[in-house]
């Protein structure tokens, strides 16, 4: 079993699907010859040819629109938007068309496309290169929204996304691309969409997170363990559909919940989880649900960026509050 970074795992999943399904076609800006600005598609054009791995003209709206036409024809387009901050012009296509093509034609046409994009801050990149757009997308009926937080989950979830019969937005945490390595069996086995992953079991508090923030959440859990506090850590992974049963079952056990995400707080996915806990899990709760999130400000430029991101210290402080309540 090879030890892969998250980036390697994405490359491996794309290669697996290209090799096993002739309908899979990759396209995006600089993804061919250059292998993508992060090298997620490195070597794929060389291996699979220019008809299957294409450098698209520099037009994000068109990239998303084209994916819909291809998907309606039965191809399995996997397009890349170079950075999440450049994907907003695709929303017309994602919301008005991709998300509702099956619905508005009563199943006559469908849209099995994947849109991949790097998300999140923390790499001190230029302006508009560190957005966390999951809530915009998770608000859209008809889409599925996924964000992996480890190489193995990136591999399995991307396979599932490509094989899914409906449009899936695949949000890749830029900060984790090369940060972690783990053994990944490159065997073509997908992980389920719509399922959360319990990364660490515990009984005192439930920590819920996704994407890059899972890293700090796990670090916080480790420090809590040293203090004798047992934290359960859940990687939501699938923002839509949302696996509330797993979170509710955990909170039924711990009675306390801290939600950690990098995106701005107001109307973030954390709010949806907290609302569900209030309506479905109120009797389990021993303390108010806490959210540790980005602030309701734009993601700052590089110099203040780290102040914005949820830190281990902020997570620990929130855990302290829910435990002291």
């Amino acid at each position, binding site marked *: 079993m090879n030890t892969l970074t998250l980036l390697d795992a994405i490359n491996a999943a794309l290669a697996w699907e290209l090799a096993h399904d002739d309908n899979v076609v990759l396209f995006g800006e600089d993804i061919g010859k250059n292998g993508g600005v992060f090298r997620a598609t490195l070597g794929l054009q060389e291996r699979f040819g220019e008809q299957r791995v294409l450098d698209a003209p520099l*037009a994000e709206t068109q990239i998303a629109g084209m994916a819909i*036409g*291809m998907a309606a024809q039965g*191809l399995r387009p996997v397009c890349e938007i170079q950075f999440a901050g450049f994907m907003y012009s695709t929303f*017309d296509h994602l919301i008005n068309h991709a998300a509702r093509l099956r619905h508005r034609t009563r199943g006559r046409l469908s849209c099995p496309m994947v849109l991949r994009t790097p998300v999140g801050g923390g790499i001190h990149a230029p302006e508009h290169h560190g957005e966390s757009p999951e809530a915009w997308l998770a608000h859209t009926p008809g889409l599925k929204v996924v964000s992996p937080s480890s190489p193995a989950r990136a591999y399995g979830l991307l396979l599932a996304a490509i094989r899914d019969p409906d449009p899936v937005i695949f949000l890749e945490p830029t900060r984790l691309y090369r940060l972690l390595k783990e053994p990944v069996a490159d065997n073509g086995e997908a992980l389920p969409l719509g399922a959360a992953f319990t990364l660490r079991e515990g009984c005192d508090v439930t920590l819920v997170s996704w994407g890059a923030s899972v890293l700090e959440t796990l670090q916080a859990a480790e420090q809590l363990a040293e203090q004798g506090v047992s934290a359960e850590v859940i990687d939501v992974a699938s923002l839509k559909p949302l696996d509330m049963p797993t979170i509710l079952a955990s909170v039924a056990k711990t009675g306390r919940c801290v939600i950690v995400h990098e995106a701005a707080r107001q109307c973030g996915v954390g709010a949806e989880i907290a609302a569900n806990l209030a309506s479905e899990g109120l009797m389990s709760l021993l303390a108010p649900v806490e959210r540790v999130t980005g602030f309701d400000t734009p993601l700052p430029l590089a110099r203040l960026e780290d102040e914005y991101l949820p830190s281990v210290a902020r997570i620990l402080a929130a855990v302290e509050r829910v435990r002291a309540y």
Partner: protein
Amino acid sequence: MIPIAEFRVPYTRFLDAHGHLASPPPDFQPHDLLPVYRAMALTRAFDAKAVALQRTGQLRTYPSSLGQEAVTVGLASVMRAEDVLLPTYRETGAMLWRGVRMQELLLYWSGDERGSDFAGPREDFPIAVPIASQCGHAVGVGFAFQYRRQPRVAVVTLGDGATSKGDFYEAMNTAGAWRLPVVFVVTNNQWAISLPARKQTAAATFAQKAIAAGIPGEQCDGNDILAVRDCIGRALERARVGDGPSLIECVTYRLSDHTTADDARRYRAQDEVSAAWALEPLARLRHFLVDQKLWSKQDEETLLADNQAAVSAAAADYLATPPQALSTLFDYLYAELPADLAAQRQQLLTERGQA
């Protein structure tokens, strides 16, 4: 200074406003126009029926294609069944020609999704309401044809207003760069709701917008069915043999309001509309067919009666269609309904006593 590149925008017209044919297009068979004429007349009858249904509270907002029948029927009449149409909302004639049933169109405009689940043509796109977005989809469809080496063409229609949008240019540009089998048909009906074409752009023609994308752009008289069929037919042939995309601008006139919710008298002069009536495509083609001894007063009377009966029967069918089940709010959103949605579905059905 020497020119580094030169461009031309050809214009095509065969039938003048009186239906006189100066010189025919190649391989022209006047007989071929009889089914086209019938379809144009049916489209007009259908539009009138739809507007009447709306005015009597039996249909929702409807966009008539009055005056544009040569474009909409003409473009479909030169497509092959296996081609794919990506229509905007004023392509009733094209959709009917391709096999969409009148009942289905009425269902759609009544606010019923089943109207887009037409029995045929199954691969055609549903009506695109957001302006110009369908251009991007057409490029994807064209890509799929090229990828599978199928001699098929994606035909996308848009209005003059849609040419102001980036989607249109982005789509043409990519289709050109990848030499994809796509035909962009711009129906220049002079009015984008209340904005006249002359205020839409400084460009002398909409056809010339193709030049920047490096693809052929042609303009034709969109009220001349021969010109529409010739220009779009040649564009289809180029696309089918691998010569890439084209843009065809068909100059016509929207004789109706934008939709039944619009009142065009607010923004355009009646004189202009009256003048446009003198150029309309149906009478023009009829004059030609009569001159050719291919059409008679009796034929016309029979056609009008047949069309009236057909649209009335379709309206009756539409009005007798049972409503959709409440559960269809959810049932087609995903291939498999996620658990949270299944719960919402169940809750609704329980509340409405249908569980």
